[in-house]
């Protein structure tokens, strides 16, 4: 007869420190504190320091004075606010209208637009900005040139180098996010709430105005809030469009403080602390409002197909909206990049330019060392970040949701902290931490790996905890009563069950790491340069057609990752 393992008693024996069930949470907490808390602590200290002599610091409030009491303080604040709120409003409007049209109306061809609406997700933010500079630059922007030609205009109708330009470019890049969130909101709404309005005699528009919109208000508020925070934290558009246009927001101020000679770390840190507080408040409000919207639920009955509004002749207006979106937001940025990548030098489309098309840019890249180094760095970082982050978060999620150890909520909280940290703030904090760090990893890709893992821990947590919560604890208890140790249970039962969520999270982190920009911009130097940074510096140097070619190759790489993902999703049963 085999022996049967007796479940461990709930009381924790202090002598059993080698017990993995206790050791692993402690290690997890240690890793999280190291990744998420230590850099912020350094940032906080750094914001009060000035270097009086090499490696000698004095404590002062001067940094804050320089950051918040200068002649630029007001304009930076105003620009950030207009940029973030304008972009949140525009993104939300576009996303909500799109989501409503495809989810709830009889607009022609709406089903086709669901995948199309999400396509811009594949376009890294840096490329989105570059593509729109190609389109809307007042000097050579294709759209401007075309409009001037068609309407016989004296000057360019649009100038991308302006606050409205920044808002537009950032909004179209964020639109898929708003779209997906609003689609989810429409899907989770009990359709009988609208049907009962119709049965009460309310027309389509009355139902939309009095029921649908009102019911969506809490969700809309939280979507707006998250868009606001994300825009505030973003650096792609502020870097590529804002800085040349001399329109500075908080993220660009931090970048500029770092890029002065000598770098003003103190002022950068003080600015970063302010941005951090702003986004933390935003995230806190967001969490509160999502909890609020959960209270807004009543008894739900059987699932029926959601009702579709009959738009009548208006449906062609809806169709026109979707088509306009497709042409301007999806098609043109890709098309302009593709076109530019085949040009010897940047030129407006013409028969003349057509005859000059060449694949020179690509052949040039083939022997261009910095490109291959950056490509290699980006790929290595994407693969490593995804693997490290997912293993780490799977363990942490398991501890938080399954171990029932006292204080495991602290781990949950620690793993959530990085979501409040804007990318450029994290970059700033890591510089302060690693410049003086005993192990010389500053300037290598390892500091980038640490940065990326830290940034994407919250994303990993979301997918990992989602799938962990679905695993009934009896499945693990059955393994324990069959004699499996803690580690064996995790390896043989928990981990295989986690696999679908794990793979989905892995792919997602892989993609976002590959295109990461706002953290890398401060940390990637020389040999640790990644693709997005290479794009940025080469664009600044004016090598725009080569930049376009790099962009196309980058998009192709991302597309192949997505293609592999779809192939895999069939095999490991990922729900998309």
């Amino acid at each position, binding site marked *: 007869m085999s022996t049967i393992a007796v479940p461990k008693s709930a009381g924790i024996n202090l002598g059993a420190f080698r017990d993995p069930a206790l050791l692993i949470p402690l290690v997890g907490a240690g890793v999280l504190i190291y990744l998420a808390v230590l850099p912020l602590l350094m940032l906080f200290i750094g914001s009060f320091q000035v270097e009086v002599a090499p490696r000698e610091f004095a404590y002062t409030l001067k940094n804050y004075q320089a950051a918040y009491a200068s002649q630029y303080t007001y304009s930076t604040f105003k620009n950030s606010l207009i940029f973030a709120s304008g972009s949140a409003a525009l993104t939300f409007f576009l996303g909500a209208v799109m989501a409503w049209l495809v989810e709830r109306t009889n607009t022609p061809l709406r089903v086709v637009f669901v995948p199309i609406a999400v396509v811009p997700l594949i376009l890294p933010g840096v490329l989105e900005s570059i593509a729109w500079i190609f389109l809307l630059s007042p000097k050579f922007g294709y759209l401007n040139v075309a409009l001037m030609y068609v309407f016989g205009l004296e000057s360019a109708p649009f100038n991308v180098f302006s606050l409205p330009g920044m808002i537009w470019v950032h909004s179209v890049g964020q639109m898929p996010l708003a779209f997906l969130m609003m689609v989810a909101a429409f899907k989770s709404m*009990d359709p*009988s*709430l609208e*049907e*009962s*309005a*119709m*049965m*009460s*005699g*309310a*027309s*389509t528009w*009355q*139902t939309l105005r*009095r*029921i649908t919109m*009102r*019911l969506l*208000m809490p969700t809309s508020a939280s979507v707006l809030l998250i868009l606001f925070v994300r825009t505030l934290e973003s650096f792609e558009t502020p870097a590529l469009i804002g800085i040349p246009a001399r329109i500075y927001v908080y993220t660009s101020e931090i970048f500029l403080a770092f890029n002065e000679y000598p770098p003003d770390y103190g002022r950068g840190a003080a600015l970063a602390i302010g941005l951090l507080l702003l986004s933390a408040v935003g995230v806190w409000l967001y969490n509160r409002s999502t909890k609020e919207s959960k*209270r*807004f*639920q*009543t*008894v*739900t*009955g*059987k699932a029926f197909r959601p*009702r579709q509004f*009959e738009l009548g002749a208006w449906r062609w207006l809806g169709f026109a909206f979707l088509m306009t979106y497709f042409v301007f937001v999806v098609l043109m940025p890709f098309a302009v990049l593709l076109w530019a990548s085949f040009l010897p030098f940047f030129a407006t489309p013409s028969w003349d330019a057509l005859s000059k098309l060449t694949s020179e840019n690509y052949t040039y890249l083939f022997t261009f060392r910095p490109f291959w180094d950056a490509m290699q760095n980006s790929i290595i970082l994407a693969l490593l970040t995804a693997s490290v982050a997912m293993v780490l978060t799977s363990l942490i999620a398991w501890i938080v949701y399954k171990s029932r150890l006292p204080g495991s909520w602290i781990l949950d909280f620690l793993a959530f902290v990085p979501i409040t940290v804007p990318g450029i703030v994290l970059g700033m904090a890591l510089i302060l931490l690693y410049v003086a760090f005993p192990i010389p990893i500053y300037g290598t890709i390892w500091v980038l790996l640490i940065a990326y893992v830290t940034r994407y821990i919250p994303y990993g947590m979301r997918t990992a905890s989602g799938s962990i919560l679905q695993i009934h604890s009896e499945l693990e208890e059955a393994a324990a009563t069959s004699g499996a140790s803690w580690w064996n249970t995790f390896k043989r039962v928990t981990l295989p069950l986690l696999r679908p969520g794990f793979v989905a999270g892995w792919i997602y982190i892989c993609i976002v790491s590959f295109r990461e920009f706002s953290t890398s911009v401060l940390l990637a130097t020389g040999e640790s340069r990644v693709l997005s940074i290479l794009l940025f510096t080469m664009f600044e140097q004016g090598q725009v057609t080569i930049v376009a070619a790099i962009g196309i190759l980058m998009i192709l790489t991302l597309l192949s990752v997505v293609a592999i993902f779809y192939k895999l999703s069939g095999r490991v049963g990922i729900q998309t």
Partner: protein
Amino acid sequence: MIEVKELVKTFIDGTGTQVKAVDHVSFKVEEGRFYTLLGPSGCGKTTTLRCIAGLEKPNEGEINVSEGTVYSSVSGAFIPAYKREIGMVFQSYAIWPHLTVMENVAFPMRVSKEKISNEEIRKRVGEALDQVEMGGLEDRMATQLSGGQQQRLALARALVRRPKVLLLDEPLSNLDAKLRERMRMELRELQRRLQITTLYVTHDQLEALSMSNTIAVMSSGVIVQQGGPREIYDHPKTQFVAQFIGSTNQISGQLTASAGEGLGKVQTPIGELSCSLLNGLSPGASVVVVVRPESIVVHREKPAESTNVIEGKIATAMFLGEYVDCSIDLGKVTLQTHQSHALQVRRGQPVWVELPAGECLALPADA
């Protein structure tokens, strides 16, 4: 009055094939009557109701509501849901969580074409809430109501517009057993008082039997049988109906002879049984003999009567309070019977069961 003629509604299912959810359904609900569509889930009853409401557009047929055509595939008429004079209660009640009780009920008047004064609205809301015994709760938020209160509120909202007909889509299925029983009575009382033509959809045979003037049993998109509660219970026309309404013993067999006057003999594994016959059955046909558990008489001694009396022994006897659920082993067949709670038997005891010929119904066996 509701009249449905040759209604067809097809859906495309997940694999892309067309499924007829409603397949040439016709029926008529007379003014002021309570009509129930009864059937298992997926039988097409809810789809039929939603077609009448205007929430689904049918593929074929005609629907008339109180003398007016609201849908006709011939003339192409389709009146949108909000223009039909119909009140409806949803299974989920569909109470708007962002509005108060008052505003939930007032909604139909707030969106109506004719301008109704606030005073009038308040008065009519009060009346409607009184009808469902919810008076005085006007200022509560809808989300603060219990399940039973939400149900009443949904009813008040459906009635406040004084619609010509009332559609109820499984309104009681989200309530607990006790409350359901009470709401059944209240709902029927209210319907009688208001004399409102009502179409009720349910899968619960008790609800259907206790409330309806007429029941239509549906299966796979067609009405299999229509009639009064008693008729449906006592004279099911198909094996499906007999099975779906109440518990039934079913014994397969073959019709050997019909003796006229609706009587005949059926050869079964437990011997030849005298049965009532459905018209149109001829000798040689495969049939199923159905007999209700409460119709079967159990004798402890061999009775003098010998028609349809079979010897067996008690397989199980479960005391359920109101009656004894007693199953009897007849060798090849086990019959379930409901006996008076006074009957005292023990397992294995030999007994004689009598299946009164008038209570045994021979039905054509379902394919």
